[in-house]
């Protein structure tokens, strides 16, 4: 295994070197970095040209200059990477260090959301193959495939951000909007649940009524201006999460799992005021981490004390429930921050921005307010990126699950008399995840490379913007810096995908064939 990884890394570094050599020369020969200076009428332009050529070593021909650049890159191994200087005289490493976290923040949430939503919907479409839900989701995913992101972005800015901000000025849901939303939720849930015509109509009515009354209640309580969950709703949602997770993982018939999940919900209720006290008095990532650790530890203890046999899956269930319940507490805290955030002068009741990565006018020292600001700025890009990339996951997980369901071992599992949940979640879903994992890893690297357009559209200054700047001003070092990071990421992602594949699928053993 170790030898295999080392050999792969060796091959990959040769590949990286080769491709960076190609791109370096392609970019170097295609333009002259001194072109704008040559045309300028500045009296000291000769001096500027000489100093710039000395700084960027322009007297060395590109193929040789590449090796000078590469020598600096090799400094990575001694902790002293040198990607050269930009034209403005800053180090490329410094620029990259600022840009990489921004790009990661941009794509991280969108990728997670796209994966969860895409796999979820994909599995439902596969289980309801050839139903109306399947057909409409197929159409939706093809439509998403065909959308250019810059086009979607303009629509989202107009119809999501500006319209929502206008709505907040006088947050009253009109009756037509309420009925539309309620009917939409009814149709959606009824087609997801499926079943006979009677079940369909029953779930349709139930979902419509529930969604309609929730929206009406939110409207009546002026929820959109001062949202929040409160201990009761947090507890209710946590119980829902506990039931849902238990049903999906081991089934609610497993009393030990259900009891441990429900006691975590109880703990969430008990932790509500202490947690808020911690949030207010010790804000910061450390407090959040502590909360997660405490809840997870409680989950493990409860699961161990309730279960006697088959402890692994029950502990997993408890951990997942405690994670989601803690998340509920944090979401609630952010919701409470919403009102003070909107009342600040910088926001002034128009919270959804169409551009930028943070509000520089906000200038708040408060941990919650400044992080809420980051979240609202993430909102539009995340929606756009999710819309575009989750279509792929729908198609892929649907296809894979259908293939798996046709396998002999599924028939065997059914023949053994296992219930449908076990067959789908344990036997089919897990095998579906094998090829999906490898796709995810490679896709994540691809999204980072493709963030150029998203960053331009939403005015973020991440790696895409650096690349753009480097291209426009013939800044070879900057260009190569961005390229090198993205290429390294994509190469590493491929390696990780291979390793994951062999870890997940026992039929595949790396490094055995040679």
């Amino acid at each position, binding site marked *: 295994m170790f030898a295999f990884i080392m050999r792969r890394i060796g091959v990959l570094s040769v590949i990286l070197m080769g*491709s960076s050599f190609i*791109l370096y020369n392609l970019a170097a020969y295609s333009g002259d970095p001194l072109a704008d200076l040559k045309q300028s009428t500045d009296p000291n332009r000769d001096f500027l040209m000489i100093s710039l050529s000395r700084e960027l070593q322009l007297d060395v021909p590109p193929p040789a200059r590449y090796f000078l650049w590469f020598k600096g890159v090799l400094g990575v191994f001694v902790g002293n990477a040198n990607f050269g200087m930009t034209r403005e005289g800053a180090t490329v490493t410094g620029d990259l260090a600022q840009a990489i976290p921004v790009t990661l923040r941009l794509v991280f949430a969108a990728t997670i959301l796209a994966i969860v939503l895409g796999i979820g919907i994909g599995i439902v479409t596969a289980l309801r193959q050839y139903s109306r839900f399947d057909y409409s989701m197929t159409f939706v995913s093809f439509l998403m495939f*065909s959308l250019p992101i*810059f*086009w979607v972005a303009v629509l989202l800015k107009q119809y999501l951000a500006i319209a929502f901000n206008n709505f907040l000025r006088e947050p009253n849901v009109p009756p037509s909007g309420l009925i539309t939303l309620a009917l939409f939720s009814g149709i959606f849930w009824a087609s997801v649940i499926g079943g006979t015509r009677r079940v369909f109509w029953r779930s349709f009515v139930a979902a419509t009524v529930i969604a309609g009354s929730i929206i009406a209640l939110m409207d009546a309580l002026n929820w959109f201006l001062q949202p929040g969950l409160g201990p009761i709703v947090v507890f209710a949602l946590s119980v829902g999460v506990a039931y849902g997770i238990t049903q999906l993982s081991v089934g609610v018939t497993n009393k030990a799992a259900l009891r441990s999940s429900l006691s975590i919900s109880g703990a969430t209720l008990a932790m509500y005021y202490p947690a808020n006290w911690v949030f207010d008095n010790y804000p910061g990532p450390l407090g959040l981490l502590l909360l997660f650790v405490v809840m997870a530890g409680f989950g493990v203890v409860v699961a161990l004390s309730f279960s006697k046999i088959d402890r692994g899956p029950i502990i997993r269930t408890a951990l997942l429930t405690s994670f989601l319940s803690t998340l509920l507490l944090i979401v609630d805290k952010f919701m409470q921050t919403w009102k003070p955030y909107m009342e600040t002068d910088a926001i002034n009741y128009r919270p959804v921005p169409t551009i930028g990565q943070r509000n520089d006018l906000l200038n708040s020292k408060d941990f919650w307010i400044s992080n809420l600001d980051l979240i609202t700025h993430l909102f539009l890009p995340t929606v756009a990126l999710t819309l575009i990339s989750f279509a792929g996951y729908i198609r892929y997980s649907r296809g894979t699950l259908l293939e798996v369901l046709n396998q002999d071992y599924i028939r065997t599992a059914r023949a053994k008399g296992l219930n449908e949940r076990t067959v789908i979640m344990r036997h089919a879903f897990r095998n579906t995840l094998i090829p999906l994992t490898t796709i995810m890893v490679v896709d994540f690297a691809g999204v980072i490379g493709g963030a150029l357009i998203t960053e331009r559209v939403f005015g973020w200054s991440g790696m895409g913007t650096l690349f753009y700047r480097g291209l426009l001003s013939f800044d070879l070092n900057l260009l190569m810096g961005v390229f090198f990071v993205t290429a390294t990421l994509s190469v590493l992602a491929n390696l990780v995908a291979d390793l994951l594949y062999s870890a997940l699928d026992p039929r595949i053993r790396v490094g055995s064939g040679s």
Partner: protein
Amino acid sequence: MARASKLSQTSTESMSGENAIANKEVEGLSQGQIVRRRFFRHRAAVISLITIFSIVILVFSALDFKLFGIWRIPGWWKWTTEELPELRVGDCPGGTVGCPTISLRPKFLGGAGIGLGTHPFGQDDIGRDFFALVMKGTQRSLSVMIVIGFLGGTLGTIVGSISGFYRGKIDAVLMRFVDFLITVPAVLIGSVIGYHYGNLGAIFLAFYLGLFAWTGLSRLVRGEFLTLREREFVDAARVAGASNRRIIFKHILPNAVGVIIVSVTLLLSGAILLETALSYLGFGVVPPDVSLGLLISQYQDSFTTRPWLFWYPGFFIITIALSINFIGDGLRDAFDPRQRRRITKKERQLSAIAKKSAQENE
């Protein structure tokens, strides 16, 4: 327990029944006929095929079009992209100028009657006819797409089949070269190429992009060749004394054509999105030439006041990409022998009746 076993039993029964129905349909048909039949049964794919054809005919007949740069085919549309007709002022809603004159509501419903009017898609800032601009832009985007698809498809097939068929050293060298190219994200390499060579014209840009677009396809074709070359019919051909060239072109390639066609359609829809994205960023087709992405990037700020400048180019991009994706889906279903289509209730009943009557006859 009993319920589950009963379920599985009925599902096996119905499955074999469905197989029988599906098999009955393809009896005595050639591979091409089966594929064609299956494709034409895919309703969305057929609609998409018709849409694409009508768009191509509309777009290439509307404006003057130079075939191979020599023959000039006159277009039927009255304006060109260079003419500057007077801006329509006055009869537009909200005090805007140059609004579209296209009307789809007939007179008896209170509309202006079905007709195009002088400027069906409106006019841009300086009065140029937007219908002509969109037609020109779609022409550009379609030609870029076709060049990328053709070049990428050919290169990918050639490289993939050579490395899959010969394996060994040739394969290793070619695939490492593919690895080289695949490390670079498409948008990044496209921007470098487009920014530096975009001014040489759309076709040249497409040619350059096509040189980098074949890598994914070549991997797929290689995989297909690796499995196909171990099959019995290849051994049989070799024993019969066929040359390598004959085996590749006459025996393996026809069997791999499904994979190739499907991924070329995906390549095509990716190509049109790549071209529009690059033009949007300013790295693709550059003014005074027109492309759909360029139109959107030029007029996105006027979305609130004159939304038609934004809707029409986007509509054409989405329609083309969507149709191609559906055609690809239809082709995949048609070429995939494992694909079982949905057997309708009526067919199942008919087959049950036929089975019963056959038993009674016995």
